[in-house]
């Protein structure tokens, strides 16, 4: 389950994904309060949680769509829009902030031509921010997919982005 939205299972057809999700729900039907882990699985399969998937989860778990929707919108981890092939997350934790995260953000927005939270037109990058991923020792840091890049300055960005096609 450490697979996240970023490493989606592109090779599967939608039907296969739904089938996998159904299996996962049934396997864990005895566990209490398992909606959130199920949504994780769903997001890792589909890359994000469109309304159809939320409805499917609700039906399979025999709960209301509004309950699923309420949970999905509460947690920032769950996405209802498609995301880019790579997710760039800028750490806006205090340590990064005082070490110049603002400058990194400005530079990234400039380079990618998108605003915070948006995805580039070619679906290459999604730009997000987060409060601290606990790599304060390397501040300022960004995370691209699962890789943390630390001790950044704006002029190191080009070389880093280059690695993610």
């Amino acid at each position, binding site marked *: 389950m450490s697979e996240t939205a970023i490493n989606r299972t592109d090779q599967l057809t939608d039907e296969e994904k739904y089938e996998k999700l159904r299996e996962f729900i049934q396997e864990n039907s005895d566990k209490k309060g398992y909606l959130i882990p199920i949504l994780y699985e769903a997001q890792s399969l589909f890359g994000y949680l469109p309304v159809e998937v939320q409805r499917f989860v609700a039906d399979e778990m025999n709960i209301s769509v509004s309950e699923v929707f*309420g949970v999905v919108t509460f*947690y920032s981890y769950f996405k209802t829009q498609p995301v880019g092939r790579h997710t760039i997350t800028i750490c806006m934790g*205090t340590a990064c902030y*005082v070490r110049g995260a603002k400058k990194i953000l400005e530079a990234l927005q400039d380079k990618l031509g998108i605003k915070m939270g948006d995805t580039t037109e070619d679906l290459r990058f999604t730009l997000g921010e987060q409060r601290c991923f606990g790599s304060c020792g390397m501040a300022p840091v960004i995370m691209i997919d699962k890789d943390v890049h630390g001790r950044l300055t704006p002029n190191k960005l080009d070389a880093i982005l280059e690695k993610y096609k």
Partner: protein
Amino acid sequence: MNNIRTQLLLCHGTSCMSNGATTVREALEEALREANLEKEVEIITTGCMGICELGPIMVVYPDGVFYQQLKPEDAREIVQEHILKGRVVQHLFYKKPKSEELVAMMEEIDFFKLQKRIARRNCGIIDVNTIDDYIGADGFMALGKALTEMTPQEVIEEVKKSGLRGRGGAGFPTGLKWDFAAKAKGEKKYILCNADEGDPGAFMDRSMLEGDSYSVLEAMMIGGYAIGANQGYIYVRAEYPLAIERLKIAISELRKHQLLGKNILGTGFDFDVEIRMGAGAFVCGEETALMRSIEGKRGEPRPRPPFPANKGLFEVPTVLNNVETLANIPYIILHGADNFASVGTEKSKGTKIFALAGNINNTGLIEVPIGITLGEIVYNIGGGIPGNKKFKAVQIGGPSGGCIPAQHLNAIVDYESLKELGAIMGSGGLIVMDEDTCMVDIARYFMEFIQDESCGKCTPCREGTRVMLKILTRICEGKGKMEDLDTLEELSYNIKDTALCGLGQTAPNPVLSTLRYFRHEYIEHIRDKKCRAGVCAELVYAPCSNSCPASVNVPAYLAYTKEGQYDKAMQAHLRANPFPAVCGRVCPAFCESRCRRKDIDDAINIRAVKRFMADQDVDYLDCFPEKKNKNGKKVAVIGAGPSGLSNAYFLTMLGYEVAVFEAQPKAGGMLTYAIPSYRLPKDIVEKEIKALVDYGVQIKTNVRVGEDITLDELRSEGYEAFYISTGSWDCVMAGMGDTGDPRIFSGLDFLSKFNKKEKLEIGKEVLVIGGGNSAIDAARTAKRLGANVTIAYRRTREEMPADEAEIIEAEREGIKISLLQNIKEVTPKKESLEVELVNMRLGEYDSSGRRRPIEIKGSTFIKKVDALILAIGQKPKISDLVKGEKIELNRNSTIPTEKGITKVKDIFAGGDVVLGAATVVEAIGEAQNAAEAIDFYLTGKIKVYPWRIKDPVNVEFDPESEPVDFKRSKDNLIPVEDRGVYDEVEKTWSKDTTCRESERCLRCEYRED
């Protein structure tokens, strides 16, 4: 075989063999037989130990003593002395080669030395991929002990007795929490581990789980046994994939060894555990919200009571403990509550893990005994602030915590004392902030965080923080009002009293604590539209200009100088500072300290460029701003130093008729009399003063106001306002000048005699006391007069207030600096002065964040010298001048002012008489403020003053282009051996060097229109 008590490990590597290891072995065997020890001592031949050049070598176990370069004849001595009598044979010891001095046995490194690892005892040591190492490190022994030797109640009592308090932030006693849940009625109970570490800057839980999940799991089982729970949940942030992976490994290892499931260790105790992932909601760190989230719902908090101990997860009794809290449990059970409680303070026992981050050299995770001081953490463990920046504050406790400024570095770290200071222990984020951090911006940042993360359920948190954020943002943009500060405080107390959960109730803390300690920064943002740290973009033209006390338009004169447009460069400079040639030589260049070019390589050498610009043949009169028409008002300036002259210049610019009264025969103050000519040639000073006179400033020398003429007499002559800038000329002599011995000088007295080219008899050996610029100037001057010079300073090199570059030059010129030494007494003898000196050590931190020097008792010694120069402090001397005026002086004899304004409405003051010994450029900044205050006093109108205006830089700049690849050019210093007595040691750069240097400017002032 079983009575072997000692093993001798004798190296039988090839190299040792060839050096005679075999004969050594034979001799040892013989000696052992002789001593009847052959049954107790075993000789083991080993493979190569790797230090072949020292062979033959041997290690004695279990003592671990290492002998080297053994010969057969040593055998008997070793057996008789070491083995029989237990005395090691020192002369056969392993001599530490130089490399071994450096060998980092971890305990020798400051970073580790002050730490005490209880919770993190296994982190970084055990193998995370198997259970073996953990078991080898006594893993699960605590669980075994609890299950087989203790009742659940005994476990609880032990934890209570240990004094362990929750490490997640609130500090609630863990034993008590367990007791409540144990006593609660219910078939089913849960124990939860909170690993939803959301505070920015905190990462101890992540590291704990990554390094030693086993301890946490063992602790949950012990807790489960104690309260009667058979099921645990660990709630981990999804942002911690590696921690989750390691937890999974640990859980599967436990299962493999039947340490989870039914009938654990055959004791009938059942326990199982499940991982649940958080999904990016900060509020889920709050206990009731976390439980809802595990239930699969929106993680909104609910009011308490009922408390989770009675009605928690799925409505049954539940205990929630933080990761770090749990990691302490196995240690407590295994080693006993008393052992644990021996660390810490009276009310806070054990250790605390902090994530040390921000502007600090040694970032990392530290586990320290509770009760350590903040200073020890920042300087001894953290290694201080990078880049010689000044420490400003630590932020401790994340968004629920507060900041603690430099004057509290001696505060001990425990739950109570942190609370008193307005912070909290919190989860353990400890972020160090230096002078480049804006405290208003930090408050805004935390408020933005809280706004983002507020779950929105209750109004005070949702709406209150929204309004607070709006106000803070406004202040950061320079649009704040003074009333905003009261509103912020009111809202803060309101939210604290009425919010539903802990997150909301503590949300205003960062604002309250920054208001408590850094109110002046808020006021600067609102009133002066200034962000001293240079962070708030709307208030910062460019970082260099922003950090210049006189706000000189640095990018402008750099750009124009590069283009060869020296008149335009000078215009931009002179508008705010009439002393470019002086500052081009002696300015400490505050501008360079914040230069953004540092992010790429080094700051621009702004001072050297300025010097080149000012040394070009440009007529100052053509470049001064145009004077306003005369307004017929007269102002008197008292003291013709840089501050007084600048103030007169600014007022002349506005149309005033200004006379500067100077007690000395020449104008210039410190520029003329104190700064030695090899640093600042006097013709340069004269040139710049003459330009001011030509501009219209009148200077009346040899007039001592207060003696020759009084303020009242000047008032009757029609002067409507006074600017006092008489400097700081009274040297602190600590009673040592009393003897009247001509061989004892004050620093300023000595320098002023030198600058007047008076004859100075100083002999061969000269001792200078002090660490400021005057001390260095005096020492270099004495050196030029042919003496051997030593400077004694009572703190260490890092604390010396003098400019680093000056200290380096002094050393290069052959001056010896003796650190941690202070003067106690001087006894003049006929042939020499006998100076009694004492060695010092550094003690606790003073309010400036520097460590106080303390005498080492009994370490005094006598040094015989021919002359003694005391440069240990200067203060103003103005009692005569302000006699009869209602001005009360500060304790250090300076005049208290607020932007140049004093208690008396027509008297203004600035420069060293206000600041104490400071710099030229600060004196000019003071003059600007006072000129504005005087103008407002005399006209009642608020204006935009010429020195505040920064005209657009009319030099083409392509923001897309890559910065030029030139490195910072060095100052053009002449070789030490070529330096004369009076000649300037630095030369002006060539045009080429200057152009290259100014081209390095990143043009931070540039804005897209």
